């Protein structure tokens, strides 16, 4: 029985590692912050607004995006999950968990759909002349709803956003090699004025705490 479990675990680990779109950097010190406990190393960095805009088609302006890399202990597969991480914005508040790609995609799609209620104006001006005389015309057309879909508002958009965030996100599975990916935390504009955050990692394998500076 044990070899079967081992084979399954290895297969899961290989699948999990091959599905990541973000390669980890060479060393933990290549990130803005890193920490180690019981052989597990975690390194992380917060992406600034420009980096987020350039790297994602999905509008993540209402989220704090953290690039996280994890090195498992030697010869010890690590069961990794995004929910093992949390972000503390300040000491007064409880840490917040990352939001799933599905949730983010749904929120952005709904925001785009609300724009379909717009009122659209089509003003026109005309001058006509000829042997019969001269005339002018002025008109305004008004359109309500039913216009073009708002940005990223269709079901296909939601699926695409979910796919992007999922493919670039930190994997959920057993790893044997270093992996990297993004975590998406909800943030208000007030949160974004903070100069540093605290990233917490808590699992059966290790407990870590990283102070992440915010680059402007």
């Amino acid at each position, binding site marked *: 029985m044990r070899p079967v479990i081992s084979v399954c675990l290895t297969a899961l680990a290989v699948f999990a590692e091959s599905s990541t*779109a973000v390669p980890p950097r060479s060393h933990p010190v290549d990130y803005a912050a890193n920490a180690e406990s019981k052989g597990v190393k975690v390194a992380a960095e917060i992406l600034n607004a420009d980096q987020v805009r350039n790297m*994602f*088609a*999905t*509008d993540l*302006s*209402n989220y704090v995006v953290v690039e996280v890399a994890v090195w498992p202990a030697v010869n010890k597969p690590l069961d990794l999950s995004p929910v093992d991480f949390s972000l503390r914005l300040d000491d007064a508040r409880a840490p917040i968990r990352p939001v799933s790609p599905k949730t983010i995609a749904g929120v952005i799609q709904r*925001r*785009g759909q*609300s*724009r379909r*209620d*717009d*009122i*659209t*104006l*089509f*003003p*026109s*001006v*005309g*001058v*006509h*002349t*000829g*042997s*019969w005389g001269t005339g002018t015309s002025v008109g305004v*057309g008004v*359109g309500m709803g039913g*216009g*073009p*879909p*708002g*940005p*990223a*508002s*269709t079901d*296909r*958009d939601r*699926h*695409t*956003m979910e*796919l*992007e965030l999922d*493919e670039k996100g930190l994997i959920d599975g057993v790893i044997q090699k270093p992996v990297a990916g993004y975590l998406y935390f909800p943030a208000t504009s007030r949160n974004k004025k903070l100069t540093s955050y605290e990233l917490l990692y808590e699992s059966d394998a290790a407990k870590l705490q990283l102070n992440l500076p915010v680059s402007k």
Partner: protein
Amino acid sequence: MIRIVLSMALAAALLSAKDDKPGRRIRLGGVSVGGSYTSGPGWYPWYPYYGGFYPGFWNRAYLYDPFFYYSPYIHPGLYSGFGYGPNLGEVKLNASDKEASVYLDGAYAGPAHKLKTLWLEPGAYNIELRDTSGQSFERRIYVLTGKTLEVRANLQPPKEPRK
């Protein structure tokens, strides 16, 4: 009949508020300004027919206007609105080699100089550029409705396999 029509359509200006302000807004769908000039006896000259006057020109050879059906008349209200394809996303491709071949999900799409702007259905695509010297560029892109994605493709020599 000689008919000269001048028409001019000014482009549609689409004013939109920022994405992060949901709710009803008023926007400008397009502005059209036009002018026309007409000369001659008119399109529908009156002529006696069965004791009355009826509009028409088709029975009167001397009033035949050969340009009537084929005139390059453009309606002043022509709407050129919200760009090209309301349900599509825009990809602006800036390739370091304009002659490179562009492939979308493995299928040949054309040379880079003819694909500076691509309008695609929302979705994830693998875009690849290859030139004749073996240099290439590959990226996974995510296209969303009404969004513009800029891809700067710097073609690189192929990586040598690890020994």
